[in-house]
Every structure is written in structure tokens, then in C-alpha cells.
């Protein structure tokens, strides 16, 4: 294990309060765990099921929501950009969405390492065990590491104690940790405090001081320190403010992989052999960044060697010499080799210099040249020597430097296609592919390695087709490649610091495929695979988590339970919290893959581990993860699971108690509403714990109680609610935000149970609740806000609407806008749930007054003027207003005038969002206005909106159109003002608007008018609209296309199909495929609305045009038509048969494909209508297509056969199939069996009557004699 690791362990565990707090002493409350500092990295609580769902919806990891442990991460992930924008708006920042977009290959930065939190980055520190290490050895190693870790902590503790005694001397104190070698632990301590006044103390002095000091401190540890020669095995130190002496810095390059201490049994990822030195690594963020790396950044780093720059001693003469040499090398002519590398081999010849050319060799000229940098300039800027002039530069390096495409050297790629581009940062993995080598010279292993490398490169960076074939090849050949050589290449790639989302997805997919093929061969590599995949389980991207789970569950199935347990057991009590956290999640996945019962004995043993609290902690956490992962599927094992964890509630370690309480909560949540009897054994300790604990632990216990109470019977639930209430009321005053949220959640859960009486809530809870939580401060934090709203909603469900609303309604006029929003949202939810039945007149007035005030007083958010949708804030106000008006219904009548006035005023506002919101509000309340008989008012609003149709912002225009639509819908075409004949011509030009929202609303409105009020508009205007609609057929949004197509139907019905059809048929000639497809759909709709006979003649006539697109279009239109008209098709079967016959024997496969689709719909429509003769005729034309190769054609053909199977019965098809089931050619057999299987799947029973008679053979009776019985 490297010292970096132990360093981190120590840090995290120390700060995490792992030690030093003895149970039973007066310091029961572990406040280092509770808040602040480094603990924020600690995973203190895990997502409940609901929170996990929430997280899926938002794409934001809940963990950071709860713990706030890394804010930067959220905004970096592309999938969460939107979420982060919202949160930024919350804070009032204006955030540049592209601020984080640099890096990676795409528009946004998708590089994983760039958005990782410090915690997630710990994956790089994970110590890997050797492949295939036996369980015994693995455990031994893990134990050694654990002991070492403990020792370090003890020493640290001692030091801390000393430091406390002498507070003035602590500044420079540091410990250096030593690596373990061959299982023995050597350590040494350095202290600078003796020499702290003189930072320039030489190393030797420091050593001496330190050694003597350490002896005094560590006398009990024996004389180990003396035996170790100072400076011999010194690896790494942290020197706070001490300047780094050159000898030390040379030995401590944080980045240079070669210098990282390597122990024989433990390996780290960053030791992967790298071509081209450490350059790529230096560019990457240093593992375990943050404060530690800052310290290192401050020191001049002499050891990060640029690969090309010759290392020169940087002192006086030598430097001058070096410069001179460099000048020489820079001015050297290009070598032939370098030229060969960058120029194509063909088309260039080497020509000899002209006869009269004499090279200039006058030294005097050199003096006039640009002066070179002074030799004495200290550490001046040095240009890197160009690649081609380096002695050791290989061909591909030169090519790389000059951007010459790295053409594949054909032999290794197999196919002629070139390899994909290799990104510079990938060179260390794939660089070797570029070497010119001859295959004969390579060993078998090397050839295999190169093959794998090429395949991986294609998968990672190739085009989709390349990727597809490579993926297939790698999984086909997986067994012959062997697990070792595959994983040796895949896993380092996955740990690459420049890995991006897409690449990770692809590589993970490779692992998945390969796993499937390798099966139990993966066993030796399980540990390494887990180490790479486990980090996915805590990724903030939901899909990454799912992917991780899938891989681990496949891995578990391939490797088997025994291997999985043996591999993960050592990690379960790892000193690293990160390792334990990820491992617990992985074990939970294994449990869900292999079944909980198989893991129960193991879990039981782990949870009862006496040796280490870490093991107990992890074991219990595994149970929690199982509950979160499997949900209600844990029910059969609930009792066992609860029993396994129950003793953890009275554990000595506080952390174990906390996780146990959280686990109980998770189990109860998963089991809801069943399984209370399984919790019998924990209710008492939980209750006791809730009484005994404070702070964080109390929060956990309360959470558990809160989740268990809803499972109880009414009387018990009521009893426990009354018991727990004093604690909750006490904690109302807690300053801890997390505690507040948990208290609210528990209140919500308690109140929801049936046994709790409304009166009790009114007298006991409400006063305190409103006093403590309905305050402005709660509205500022998003999570508090949500929890308060939810809890209030639940309280209202119990005590009724007016009780709650009368308490908060006056706050709608509060000064603080976020607070008004919170009130508004609550009012909305309460009214939506309960209606406005028990709101009396006085309250009604206050309510309307309040919402009008809140609506008018909204701050105008200038940042979103005219762009995008309504913000969350205005959306809440809008929803709230709409909900109140809808809930009050007719009772709104007296206030509608005022509301309309507000709307009119706001429609005239400068800010676009305000106008948009006002228009949206009209759409919401139109129904209520109609109910109040305010037709005149609505007509007035209609005219106002009509006047605003010139709106320039598309979002606002869209909202205005939707408001008009709402008004038209409720007052009808005849009553509408402005009259339809004025309104529609105004809409025609708007149809040309390209904005989706405008298009959608406009087409909806036009379609509605065409449907209900077509007669108000002239046929000419409708034709004009038809032309505009054609463009909409290729809209991106499906709703728009659908609306456009059905509008065609309405228009055709209004003005007759001829003109419309003519327009549509002409449109078949266009190039755009989507356009043609939609045109055909429109034609089919027209046929459906106006009757097929009006359309079919023109359609079939059009088929005679000898143009492929048109013919296809006609066929497709017919296919859609038969789909829509169903059994009406029986009248047209004989009419279209000759045409289909022609199409089915066409040379063009697409033609036949479309015809097949047509036959299918036709057959399905007319089944049982007595058209079998025509269908058999068509079947005879369809059947030869079964040997078609192209996937789409064959699919269409099988679909047609399937349709015919329905219409003709399976036995007709069976007659065709029987001919080829035992055909000598496999190709034929395969196809025929496929058809047979389809028949069998759909109509197995009917086939019984149709199977052929088979003659008996020897002892086999093949005759089905039962069928021969008759009466």
C-alpha cells in the first residue's frame, strides 16, 4: 500500500471520529461526525427509496443534496446542467452554462474525472490485490493493512495529545508514513517542531532531531527506529511550510508513476505501464487533490520530467553547455527518417540540390541572427525540442506531432479499414498499435494483445459500424483471447483519467459482453473488475448506476456466490470508508442477483463480527442497500434481515448504531405497508435509542421510528405518535437543518396514520409547528421548503383545508417573496387535494386578496426575459393561482373582473415572462370563466389576446395562442370574438413560425377551427392553410406532426378531398423522406375521413407514374389507409390486388417491403370477411420474399405472413412451411423453421389439426392415433 493511501485513511478516519470517543464517557455525541470540515465527504445517510426516485427524476445525486458535499460536481455533469441552472437561479447567480464546458470531446465536458468529487476520486487510491489471490492470502493482507492503519492512528493520536500539551510547537509537525514491504510494517516519524524556528535546517539535522524525538515518544515500540538508516527508505513526506530540498523532492514526485512506491503484492492503477513517460499523467488532476496537492504545487517540482526535454543540471556552466547543445540540435536539418514519417511514401522523390548551390558557412552571419537567450538567464523559458529532432523519437510520435493521420499499417487491423483516430491522451494505451511491426516477428501473445487493442480502440473511438463489428468480434473471440489479456487492457482504460461518459459506457458494455462469454473464467479477475465497476454505483448519473448494477449482477452470476463473497470479504472491513461504502452497495447487488437467502448466513456473520466495528457497520449497511435496491421484494426475508441488524442498535460504536437505525428505516420503508410483526424486536431499542441519543444519532433513530409507525395498527400508531411527539416538539427548535427535515418527515408520517386524531393534531402539533416552521427562513433552503410544504399538506389532509389555510393565508402578503411562494405552493396543494368546500366567505376573500397580491407582486426576473420557459417561481405562482380559481369555481364570479384586469395589465408588461404567465393564466381559468357565465368578459379577453398576436417572443406567442384556444374551446365557434373569419387569416402566417411551442399551439387552434367551424372560412383560405401545413409534416415534435396530419383530415372533410389530395400527391415528389412519410399518413387520414372511394382512384392512378418515390408513397399511403379503415377494406381488396401483385414482384426491395406492409394491414383488416381467395393470391406473391437478406424487407415479409396467418388460419401457412422444414439446405431450413415458430407461438393449438401424418418407424409410433377415433 502506498503511503498516499495510508495518509488518506488516517485523515478520513481521524476526522470521521472513528476513534477516540469511548462509549460511556460523557462525550457520547460525536460532533465531529455531525457537521463541518472534512466530514462532509463522509456518507452520513443514504437515500431512502423516495429520495432515490427523486434523484432519478432530477438526475442529481441525493447524497450531495443531503450532505452538500460537493456542489461543483452537480453543475459539471451535462445531464444535470438544467437542474443546476435552476439551483443557480435560486441563488440569484447568473451562471454561464458553458463555464464548465471546456475539456472532453463534446460541446459540454463529459470527462468523468473533471466532475468527480473528492470523495469519488478516491477510487484512484484503491489498493488492488493480485489477481486470483486466495481468500486466505487476501484476508491476511487485509488484516495487515488494517493493523497498520490502526498503528498509524495510534501514533497520530499520541502526537495529537503531545501537541495539545505543547500547543505552540505543533506547526510544522507531520508524520511520514512508510510503505509496507513484504508484509512488515515499518514506520518512522519526523518532527520538525524542534527546529521549527529555523526552517532551513538541513535534512540531516532534522533527521537527528526527529529520531531522538521519536524515541522518546515511541519508546514502547522498541528500537525499530534505530535500525532503520535515516533517508534510506524515505518515500514521501509532507512538509508544511518547509522548503523542499532537492534530494527529497526528487524522491517525492507525486505524479511520476515510476517513483510511486511499489510493493510486491499491492498495486495501484497509476502504475500501468505508460508509453511516452508520465506526460499524460502530469496533466491530470492529482489523485487526492484538494488541500494536500496545494501544498505540493507550491514547491518547485523538479521531478515532473517533460519527455522530450533533456534533463540537464541547472547550474551555471552546465546550463550554458546545455543551451549550446540545444541550439545545435534545433538547427540540425531534418533527418531522412523524420521526413519519411510525415510525407506520404508515394508521389514524392528526393531530388539532389542544384549544382551551383553552395551552403552558407560564414560564421559571421550567425552573429547577426536573433540573439539566443542569455546563457545566464536563470531558468528561462525553454522551448521543447521538436519531436523529429529527438534522437529517440519514433515514427508515430513524429506523425502525431505533425498531425499526419496515423494510418494503420494494414496487417494488424485485419480488414482494410483504417483504425480510428487515437486521442493524444490515449496514446499510452494504444500507442503500440502505431508501431510498424511485422506480424511474423511477434509472439503469439503479442499478436493477441494487438488484436484486442485494435478492437478496443475501435470500440472506444470508432464509428458506429466499426464499433458494432468490433464489439461482436471481441465477444465472439473472448474465450480464445482469455480473461487475463482482455481485462489487462480493458480495466486500465476504464481507470484512465481522461475517460468520458460515452467511452465508459462502451467499455462497460464490453465487460458485460465479455463476462457473458467468459463465464467462470473471470473468477481470478473479480476483484479488479469490482474495483473498477464499484465507483459506478455511486455515480451521480442514474444510468451509470444502473449499468454498474447490471455488470455486478452479471459478474455475480458468472463467478458464483463463493467467489464473490471471498473477493468482497476483505473489503468489508477495509479501513477506507470509500471502499466499504462501495463494497456494501456491490454486495447488495449480488444479493439481488443471487437471491437474499443465499447471502443471509454471510450477512449474519459479518454483522456480528466482534473483531472490527467496520465489518459490523458495512454488514448492516449492506442490509440497508438491499432494502433500497430490492424494495418490497425483501418482504419474505424481512424478519431475518431485521434480526441480523437488530443488535446494532445497542452497539458500542455510535456509527454502527446510526447506520442500524437508518437500515431499520430503509427496511420499514421498503416493506410498507406490511411486516410490522418483523420489527417487534427492534421497536423497544429504537424507542430507547430515541430517548437516549442526541444530535445526528437521534435524527437517525427518529427517522427509523418515523418509518415504522405507518406500518403499525391504528391504536399502536396513535400511541407511539403521542410518545414520540414530545421529542419531536423538543427538536423543533434544533438548529440542525438535517434534524429539522427529519422531524418534519416524521411528523408527516405520524400524521398520515389512521390512528391520529385531528383534534390532537390541532391542539398539540399545529401551534408549535406553525411557530417554528412557517417562518421566512425555511423558504430559503430548497429542501427545507419542500419538506415543510409536504408536511403541511399532510397535516391539512388530516385537519382539513380551512384550518391550515386560515393560518397561512395572510402570509401571501408577506414581504419575502420566497416565503409567499411557499405559501402559494402549499395553498395550491391543499386545495387540489381537498377542494374549497370548507372555506367560508371571509376566508375566501382573504384568499383571493392574497393570491392577487402575491401574483402582482412577483419580482420580474430580468434574466429570463423572453427566453425559455417560465421559471420555477412563476410556474408556482401560476399553478397556485390556477388551482385556487379552479377550486373555488363559481364562487370566483365576483372576483373575475379584477382577475381579468390584472391579466390585461400584465399582458401589456415589458417583461416577456410576465406576458407569458398572464396568457397561461387565461388558459387555466377559461373553464371557470365559462362556468361563471362571464362570456362577455371572455370575449373581451379574446379580442385583447387577438391584438397581441403580433408578439415577438415565440414562447409568449405560443402562450397567447394556447389562451385563445382555451377560450375558443369553451365559448364555441359562433360566440367567439373576434369572429373566426377574422381570426383564422391572422393565424395562417403564424403557421410559418418555426418555433415548436408556437407551431404546436397554432396548429391545435387551426385544427380545432377546421373541426368545429370550418364553414366560417372560405375554401380558398383553407387551401392556403393546407400549403402551410405541408411544412409542418416534417416538424421534429410528434405532437405537431400528428396535429398537422389530423388537420388535413378536417380540412378535407370541410372542402372535399379532391383539392387536398392533389396537394398531397404533389408533395410525394419531394426529396425529404420524413415529409413523404407524413404526406402518406395525411392521405390515409383523408381517405379515412372522406371514405376510401374518394381517394383510391386518384391514388392508384398516381401509382402509374414511373417514379420510385411516388410509387412507394402510394403504397405506403395505402398501407396506412388499410390500417386506419380496418374491415372497411373488404370492399377494396379486389380493386387493389393487381396493384399489390405488381408491387410484390418489383425489383426494388423497398417496393416489395412497402407492399408487404400493405398486405399485412389489408389481411389483418379483412380477416373473417370472406376475402381468402384474394389473400391466398397475395400470399403466393409474398412468400418468395422469405429469403430476402435485408433486415427491413425480411421483417416486413414476416409481418405480412403473420397478418395472413391471422386472416387465413395457421394451417394454410403450415402447408407452405412443411415443404422446407427438412430441406437439405440449412439456409432454407432456418428460414422455414422461423416461420414455423411464429405459427407455433401464436396458434399452437390450431396447428394440432394441421400437422402432417408421419409414418411409424421401428419402435417409434409417429402416428397420432387419437385423431383417428370417431363415433
Amino acid at each position, binding site marked *: 500500500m502506498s503511503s498516499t493511501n495510508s495518509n488518506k485513511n488516517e485523515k478520513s478516519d481521524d476526522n470521521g471520529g472513528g476513534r477516540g470517543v469511548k462509549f460511556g464517557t460523557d462525550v457520547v455525541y460525536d460532533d465531529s461526525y455531525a457537521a463541518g470540515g472534512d466530514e462532509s465527504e463522509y456518507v452520513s445517510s443514504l437515500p431512502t427509496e423516495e429520495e432515490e426516485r427523486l434523484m432519478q427524476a432530477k438526475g442529481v445525486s441525493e447524497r450531495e443534496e443531503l450532505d452538500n458535499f460537493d456542489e461543483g460536481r452537480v453543475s459539471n455533469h451535462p445531464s444535470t446542467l438544467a437542474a443546476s441552472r435552476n439551483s443557480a437561479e435560486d441563488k440569484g447567480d447568473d451562471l454561464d452554462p458553458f463555464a464548465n464546458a471546456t475539456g472532453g470531446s463534446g460541446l459540454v465536458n463529459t470527462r468523468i474525472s473533471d466532475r468527480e468529487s473528492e470523495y469519488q476520486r478516491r477510487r484512484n487510491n484503491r489498493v488492488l490485490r493480485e489477481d486470483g489471490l486466495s481468500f486466505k492470502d487476501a484476508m491476511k493482507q487485509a488484516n495487515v493493512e488494517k493493523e497498520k492503519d490502526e498503528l498509524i492512528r495510534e501514533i497520530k493520536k499520541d502526537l495529537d495529545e503531545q501537541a495539545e500539551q505543547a500547543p505552540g510547537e505543533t506547526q510544522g509537525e507531520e508524520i511520514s508514513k512508510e510503505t509496507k514491504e513484504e508484509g512488515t510494517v515499518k514506520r518512522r516519524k519526523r518532527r520538525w517542531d524542534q527546529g521549527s524556528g529555523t526552517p532551513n535546517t538541513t535534512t540531516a539535522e532534522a533527521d537527528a532531531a526527529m529520531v531522538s524525538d521519536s524515541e522518546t515518544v515511541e519508546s514502547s515500540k522498541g528500537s525499530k527506529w534505530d535500525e532503520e538508516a535515516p533517508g534510506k527508505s524515505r518515500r514521501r513526506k509532507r512538509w508544511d511550510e518547509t522548503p523542499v530540498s532537492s534530494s527529497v523532492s526528487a524522491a517525492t514526485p507525486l505524479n511520476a508513476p515510476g517513483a510511486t512506491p511499489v510493493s510486491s503484492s499491492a498495486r495501484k492503477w497509476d502504475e500501468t505501464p505508460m508509453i511516452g513517460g508520465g506526460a499524460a499523467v502530469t496533466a491530470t488532476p492529482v489523485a487526492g487533490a484538494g488541500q494536500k496537492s496545494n501544498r505540493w504545487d507550491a514547491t518547485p517540482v523538479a521531478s515532473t520530467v517533460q519527455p522530450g526535454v533533456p534533463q540537464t543540471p541547472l547550474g551555471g556552466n552546465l546550463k550554458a553547455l546545455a543551451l549550446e547543445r540545444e541550439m545545435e540540435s534545433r538547427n540540425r536539418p531534418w533527418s531522412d527518417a523524420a521526413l519519411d514519417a510525415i510525407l506520404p511514401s508515394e508521389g514524392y522523390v528526393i531530388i539532389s540540390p542544384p549544382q551551383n548551390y553552395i551552403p552558407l558557412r560564414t560564421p559571421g552571419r550567425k552573429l547577426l541572427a536573433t540573439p539566443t537567450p542569455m546563457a545566464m538567464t536563470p531558468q528561462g523559458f525553454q522551448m521543447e525540442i521538436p519531436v523529429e529532432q529527438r534522437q529517440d523519437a519514433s515514427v508515430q510520435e513524429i506523425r502525431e506531432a505533425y498531425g499526419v493521420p496515423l494510418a494503420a499499417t494494414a496487417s494488424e487491423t485485419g480488414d482494410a479499414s483504417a483504425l480510428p483516430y487515437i486521442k493524444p491522451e490515449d496514446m499510452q494505451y494504444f500507442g503500440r498499435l502505431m508501431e510498424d511491426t511485422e506480424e511474423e516477428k511477434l509472439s503469439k501473445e503479442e499478436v493477441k494483445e494487438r488484436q484486442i487493442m485494435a478492437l478496443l480502440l475501435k470500440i472506444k473511438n470508432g464509428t458506429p459500424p466499426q464499433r458494432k463489428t468490433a464489439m461482436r468480434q471481441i465477444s465472439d473471440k473472448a474465450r480464445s483471447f482469455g480473461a487475463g489479456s482482455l481485462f489487462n487492457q480493458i480495466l486500465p482504460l476504464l481507470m484512465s483519467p481522461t475517460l468520458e461518459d460515452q467511452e465508459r459506457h462502451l467499455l462497460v458494455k464490453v465487460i458485460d459482453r465479455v463476462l457473458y462469454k467468459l463465464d467462470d473464467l473471470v473468477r481470478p479477475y473479480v476483484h479488479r473488475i469490482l474495483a473498477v465497476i464499484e465507483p459506478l454505483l455511486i455515480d451521480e448519473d442514474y444510468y451509470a448506476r444502473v449499468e454498474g448494477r447490471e455488470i455486478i449482477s452479471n459478474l455475480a452470476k458468472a463467478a458464483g456466490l463463493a467467489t464473490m463473497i471471498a473477493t468482497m470479504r476483505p473489503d468489508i472491513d477495509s479501513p477506507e470508508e470509500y471502499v466499504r461504502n462501495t463494497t456494501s452497495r456491490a454486495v447488495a447487488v449480488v444479493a439481488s442477483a443471487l437471491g437474499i437467502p443465499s447471502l443471509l448466513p454471510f450477512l449474519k456473520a459479518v454483522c456480528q463480527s466482534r473483531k472490527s466495528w467496520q465489518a459490523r457497520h458495512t454488514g448492516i449497511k449492506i442490509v440497508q442497500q438491499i432494502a433500497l435496491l430490492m424494495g418490497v421484494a425483501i418482504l419474505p426475508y424481512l424478519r431475518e434481515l431485521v434480526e441480523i441488524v437488530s443488535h446494532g442498535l445497542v452497539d458500542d460504536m455510535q456509527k454502527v448504531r446510526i447506520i442500524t437505525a437508518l437500515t431499520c428505516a430503509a427496511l420499514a420503508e421498503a416493506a410498507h405497508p406490511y411486516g410490522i410483526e418483523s420489527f417487534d424486536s427492534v421497536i423497544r431499542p429504537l424507542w430507547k435509542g430515541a430517548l437516549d441519543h442526541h444530535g445526528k444519532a437521534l435524527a437517525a433513530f427518529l427517522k427509523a421510528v418515523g418509518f415504522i409507525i405507518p406500518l403499525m395498527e391504528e391504536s399502536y400508531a396513535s400511541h407511539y405518535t403521542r410518545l414520540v411527539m414530545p421529542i419531536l416538539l423538543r427538536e423543533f427548535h434544533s438548529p440542525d437543518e438535517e434534524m429539522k427535515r427529519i422531524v418534519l418527515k416524521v411528523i408527516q408520517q405520524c400524521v398520515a396514520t389512521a390512528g391520529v386524531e385531528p383534534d390532537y393534531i390541532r391542539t398539540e402539533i399545529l401551534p408549535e409547528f406553525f411557530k417554528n416552521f412557517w417562518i421566512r427562513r425555511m423558504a430559503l433552503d430548497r429542501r427545507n421548503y419542500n419538506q415543510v410544504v409536504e408536511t403541511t399538506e399532510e397535516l391539512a389532509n388530516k385537519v382539513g383545508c380551512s384550518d391550515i389555510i386560515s393560518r397561512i393565508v395572510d402570509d401571501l402578503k408577506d414581504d419575502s417573496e420566497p416565503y409567499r411562494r411557499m405559501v402559494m405552493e402549499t395553498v395550491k396543494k391543499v386545495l387540489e387535494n381537498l377542494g374549497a368546500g370548507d372555506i367560508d366567505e371571509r376566508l375566501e376573500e382573504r384568499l383571493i386578496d392574497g393570491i392577487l397580491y402575491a401574483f402582482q407582486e412577483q419580482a420580474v426576473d430580468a434574466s429570463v426575459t423572453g427566453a425559455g420557459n417560465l421559471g420555477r417561481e412563476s410556474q408556482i405562482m401560476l399553478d397556485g393561482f390556477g388551482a385556487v380559481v379552479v377550486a373555488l369555481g363559481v364562487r370566483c364570479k365576483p372576483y373575475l373582473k379584477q382577475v381579468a384586469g390584472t391579466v390585461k395589465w400584465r399582458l401589456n408588461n415589458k417583461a416577456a415572462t410576465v406576458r407569458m404567465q398572464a396568457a397561461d393564466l387565461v388558459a387555466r381559468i377559461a373553464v371557470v370563466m365559462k362556468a361563471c357565465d362571464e362570456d362577455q368578459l371572455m370575449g373581451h379577453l379574446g379580442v385583447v389576446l387577438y391584438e397581441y398576436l403580433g408578439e415577438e417572443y415565440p414562447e409568449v406567442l405560443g402562450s397567447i395562442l394556447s389562451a385563445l384556444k382555451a377560450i375558443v374551446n369553451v365559448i364555441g365557434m359562433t360566440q367567439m370574438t373576434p369572429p373566426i373569419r377574422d381570426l383564422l387569416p391572422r393565424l395562417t402566417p403564424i403557421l410559418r413560425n418555426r418555433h415548436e411551442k408556437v407551431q404546436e399551439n397554432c396548429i391545435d387552434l387551426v385544427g380545432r377551427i377546421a373541426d368545429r367551424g370550418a364553414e366560417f372560412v372560405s375554401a380558398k383560405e383553407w387551401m392556403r392553410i393546407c400549403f402551410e401545413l405541408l411544412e409542418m409534416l416534417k416538424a421534429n415534435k410528434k405532437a405537431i406532426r400528428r396535429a398537422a396530419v389530423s388537420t388535413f383530415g378536417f380540412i378535407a372533410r370541410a372542402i372535399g378531398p379532391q383539392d387536398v389530395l392533389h396537394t398531397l400527391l404533389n408533395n410525394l415528389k419531394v426529396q425529404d423522406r420524413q415529409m413523404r412519410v407524413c404526406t402518406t399518413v395525411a392521405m390515409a387520414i383523408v381517405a379515412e375521413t372522406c371514405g376510401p372511394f374518394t381517394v383510391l382512384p386518384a391514388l392508384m392512378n398516381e401509382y402509374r407514374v414511373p417514379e420510385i418515390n411516388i410509387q412507394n408513397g402510394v403504397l405506403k399511403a395505402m398501407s396506412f389507409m388499410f390500417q386506419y379503415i380496418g374491415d372497411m377494406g373488404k370492399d377494396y381488396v379486389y380493386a387493389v390486388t393487381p396493384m399489390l401483385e405488381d408491387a410484390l414482384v418489383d425489383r426494388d426491395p423497398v417496393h416489395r417491403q412497402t407492399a408487404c406492409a400493405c398486405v399485412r394491414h389489408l389481411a389483418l383488416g379483412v380477416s373473417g370477411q370472406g376475402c381468402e381467395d384474394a389473400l391466398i393470391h397475395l400470399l403466393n406473391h409474398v412468400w418468395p420474399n422469405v429469403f430476402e437478406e435485408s433486415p427491413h424487407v425480411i421483417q416486413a415479409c414476416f409481418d405480412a405472413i403473420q397478418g395472413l396467418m391471422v386472416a387465413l388460419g395457421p394451417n394454410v401457412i403450415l402447408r407452405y412451411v412443411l415443404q422446407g422444414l427438412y430441406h437439405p439446405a440449412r439456409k432454407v431450413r432456418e428460414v422455414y*423453421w*422461423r416461420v414455423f415458430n411464429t405459427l407455433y*407461438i401464436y396458434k399452437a393449438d390450431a*396447428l*394440432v389439426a394441421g*400437422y402432417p401424418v*408421419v409414418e411409424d418407424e421401428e419402435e417409434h*409410433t409417429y402416428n*397420432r392415433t387419437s385423431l383417428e*377415433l370417431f363415433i
Partner: protein
Amino acid sequence: MSNPGGAVISAEQLKARYIGTGHADMSKYDWVTNQHRDTYASHVAHYDQLSYYAVAQNESIGRVRLQFLDKMIQPCGPPPPTKDVDKMLENED
């Protein structure tokens, strides 16, 4: 045949779901055995057929049902001995 998601069902999955489906290398014995079983299953599942056979054989319906169910075990007699070719094929896989 397509599935939601577009992936084609693999042969093994198909066989697992519908035991009577076949493939290009299916032997005559296997296929006819399936036919027989399907036939008996069909007889047993349709009450009208069952009663028809009961009348034809002058047996009780329950007995006929039992008789059909019994016949489903090796309806065509013992399976043919495995040929060496098949063994080789198996070893290859």
C-alpha cells in the same frame, strides 16, 4: 419476430418460453414428439374434445384425461440413441 427494444429473441430464450418451437437441426423424433404432446394437450384442454374421446372409447372423462396425460411421457417411444456426431457437436459447444 420483434420485441420491445428491438432485440431479437435468442434461440434459447425462445425455447425457454415456448417449448415446442424448433430449429434447423431438429430431429424428426423431437419434432413429432412435440406434435404429439401438443395434440394431447389440446385434447385435454378442450372439454368438448375430451368428452368426444370419452364417448368414442366408452371411458369416463377423467380416465381419458389421465390416459392422455400419461401418454405425454415419451409419446413416440424411447428416444433414438445419441449418435456420435451429436456428441461431437456437443463437445464443440
